């Protein structure tokens, strides 16, 4: 002991990750470059129009992921918990939109055409707006009650406890939806004005690319919602309070902020975003079932982690990035489309290995991790 006093103590004997990480990185990067070289330069199998098509679909799906990811990130930023039931909140919003469309389809507008038009055909834009409003409201309510019932009693418990509670809530909501609405897959409403598959035509190399109306709606609306959220968090009093609670709950409470109310509102906001994402998902993909929220939920969570969880621009970036990787990746690397999730998860692992707190994530302090 005494003999070693002069030299600084050697903290780590062998730093495996120092050796392994570069090897891992070079292997992955090398593989990606090799495949890209093969596909893009040697084979040249795909023309520009394929890439544009994939790019567009990647942006659309990325917008949806980003919206859901923001919900994860907002909650994580404040409570440091993975809201595992967030995908189910989205599912609830999808169903709410579905039922609204079914109702508007059922209402006949008197005196508008012969045979009488249904409300959704007579006022397609109004019914779409209504569906979004209803979906967002219902999801926000679901988020509020989810927090109140499943998470609020667990304030201050060890980190794993709320996670298990969230998993339980997720199971519960999924199965409740299955029991209520049956496990069948239903067709989502397809309003004629923005029918799936129809859209603006874009000519590239004399081949037609359809930019679908639903896709544009999804993308534009998600960007608008994200901007709105960002402005809200940065400029309004509520946003300020949210940031205060996220950085230090105790001090925020001492400054006169009602921490519980802010947490409730955070869940309401993230629920509303998930509801909007759900209705978009339904309109764009045309399907709704009780399992609809699970996969987007997992993906969006991945996106949130990718961007640096707790960081709102990070979630947006992560969502977009994941959407693009998912849609461009398989083609760019010349891999079967079945493996798009493998690519997405692999990219996430690679990024986390080199940037352990995500793309835009701060280096979290010990207590937060």
């Amino acid at each position: 002991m005494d003999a070693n006093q002069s030299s600084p103590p050697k903290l780590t004997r062998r730093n495996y990750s120092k050796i392994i990480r570069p090897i891992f990185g070079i292997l992955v990067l090398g593989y990606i470059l090799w495949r890209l070289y093969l596909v893009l330069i040697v084979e040249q199998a795909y023309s520009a129009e394929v890439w544009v098509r994939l790019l567009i679909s990647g942006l659309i799906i990325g917008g949806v992921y980003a919206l859901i990811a923001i919900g994860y990130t907002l909650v994580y930023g404040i409570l440091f918990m993975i809201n595992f039931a967030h995908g189910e909140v989205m599912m609830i919003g999808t169903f709410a939109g579905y039922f609204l469309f079914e109702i508007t389809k059922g209402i006949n507008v008197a005196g508008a055409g012969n045979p009488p038009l249904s409300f959704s055909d007579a006022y397609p834009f109004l019914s779409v707006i209504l569906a979004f409003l209803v979906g967002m409201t219902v999801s926000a309510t679901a988020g509020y009650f989810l927090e109140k019932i499943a998470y609020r009693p667990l304030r201050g418990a060890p980190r794993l406890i709320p996670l298990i509670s969230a998993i339980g809530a997720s199971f519960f909501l999924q199965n409740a939806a299955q029991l209520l609405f049956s496990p069948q897959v239903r067709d989502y409403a397809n309003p004629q004005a923005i029918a799936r598959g129809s859209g603006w035509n874009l000519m590239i190399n004399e081949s037609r690319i359809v930019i679908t109306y639903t896709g544009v709606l999804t993308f534009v609306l998600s960007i608008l919602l994200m901007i709105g959220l960002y402005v809200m968090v940065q400029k309004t009093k509520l946003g300020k309070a949210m940031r205060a609670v996220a950085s230090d709950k105790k001090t925020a409470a001492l400054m006169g902020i009602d921490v519980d109310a802010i947490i409730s509102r955070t869940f309401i906001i993230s629920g509303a975003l998930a509801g909007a994402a759900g209705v978009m998902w339904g309109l764009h993909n045309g399907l709704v079932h009780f399992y609809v929220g699970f996969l987007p939920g997992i993906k969006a969570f991945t996106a949130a982690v990718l961007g640096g969880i707790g960081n709102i621009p990070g979630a947006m970036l992560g969502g977009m990035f994941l959407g693009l990787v998912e849609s461009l990746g398989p083609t760019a690397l010349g891999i079967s489309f079945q493996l798009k999730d493998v690519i997405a998860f692999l990219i996430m692992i690679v990024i986390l290995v080199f940037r352990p707190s995500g793309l835009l994530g701060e280096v979290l302090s010990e207590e937060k991790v």
Partner: protein
Amino acid sequence: MNKETIRTGSQKGLLFGIVMIFLVLINFHIMAATMISKVLGTNVLRGAFPEVRFMIIFLVIFGMWAGWSAVRREGSTTNKLFEGLIGGMTTGLVVALFGLILFFLLETQTDVRRYLTALSFASIDIFLLGLRGMGILTLFGLFTLTGVLGGALAVGLRSQAVANFIKKIKTSIRNLRQRITDSLPDNVKKYGKYIFYLLLLVLLLLLPARWGSYNNFVFGMVGIYVILGIGLNIMLGLSGQFMIGIAALFAMGAYSVALLNSPFPHGLMWGFWPSLAVGVVMAVIGGLLLGLPIMRLRGDYLGIVTLGFGEIIRILLNSDLLTDLTGGPRGIQNIQQPTFLGMPFNDVSYAYLIIIAMAVSIFLYYRIENSRTGRAWLSIKEDALVSQATGVDVQKYKLLALCVGAAFAGLAGGIFAARNQFTGPNDHTLMVSINVLSVVIVGGINSIPGIILGSFALRGLPELLRELETYRLLVFGALLVFMMIVRPEGLWPASRPDLEEKGNTGLKEDLDPEENEGRSDD
């Protein structure tokens, strides 16, 4: 009667009313009435509806519960009764309004089953007690009445007299226990633990041969989850690494045994025992490969990376890419059955195999936990930086934890594949990882009895409660939330955290398990 009385009463009543509506919408009331009918000795044929009187019993129980929970702890007796009354009345009002809608649907013969799948006319009819319009009023009256009854029950059972009575019983039980322990000779006291283990062993040896193949199947499932839980606990509970991808390691064990023992796709027939060893080794390699690049990650980041790893393995198994190697989405069928000393395996031998594997796992777990390695893990879990500064090679021990945990997962996977004679990608989904995580947390982290109990509660009970089949996962989810709120430390929490609060100095004696047990019993 004051404002508070009305508020609590109506709030609880509203809540219970909504719950009742939900239960009717998922057809739970029919199931409950059927169960009650079976308990009371009137069997109900499958697909048939129970008699109305059993429905009334269910509603009475529900209404009394509503009244009971509407009663606050403080306030005078009249106040409490009023709270019960208001609770029951609000529930009744909500349910009656709902009944009105149902009645309307019934009268106009509007079929809403396209949207609300459980709401058939027969189900509505029995909920309205077969009285149609009058049923609405009856429901309202019933809930009001039972609300008061529940309130009265709450007043009665929460009264001082009952509390004293329960206290008396508790003391007498404690006295009795004390007397029995005192009367036992010292030898028995000293070896009581071992006698208990011996009895357990005898029970475990006798039961599998007796209780039929279905129970053996359920028991095997529980045992496999116990082994998996031990593996996860080494990663999560001992070394503090948040792992949600244990299904991948489980899959490595299962696929090793399956691929080396089936006619298709490779036609290798290595036999069970060597391939089980290969499975364990493969899982360890998997753990190592997973662990090496991600050593720097912590907390939830580690969780999501392991989740991604699990998904990658599952998708790869499911894809066309590996169909030639692993059989693709169809999985691997006809896995050759193991033999022991020339005897082929049946369900009883599998039960014994699982018991032995479980016993070995538990033994190994305790040995590791109390070794230098185990203490190094615990110190890393408490504070990685400090333990590094005190000379613990954090990375080595973290990797070791992943590898050791993976070995258990591989063992469980190998047994699982052989026992089912089949394994496919769907046996290794994210749900498996989540289930194992739930088993460990619900049972009690770092507590072997807890993990066993958790496996029984989460894997065994749902299999045995086939009656509830449709509602199994719903109840499971609600139960998880409920457990976390009511008993977050788990069903059978470990004794170590208590010691730490009492001022554990970290000396070797304090970590001795025998000492711990002695103290926690005090």
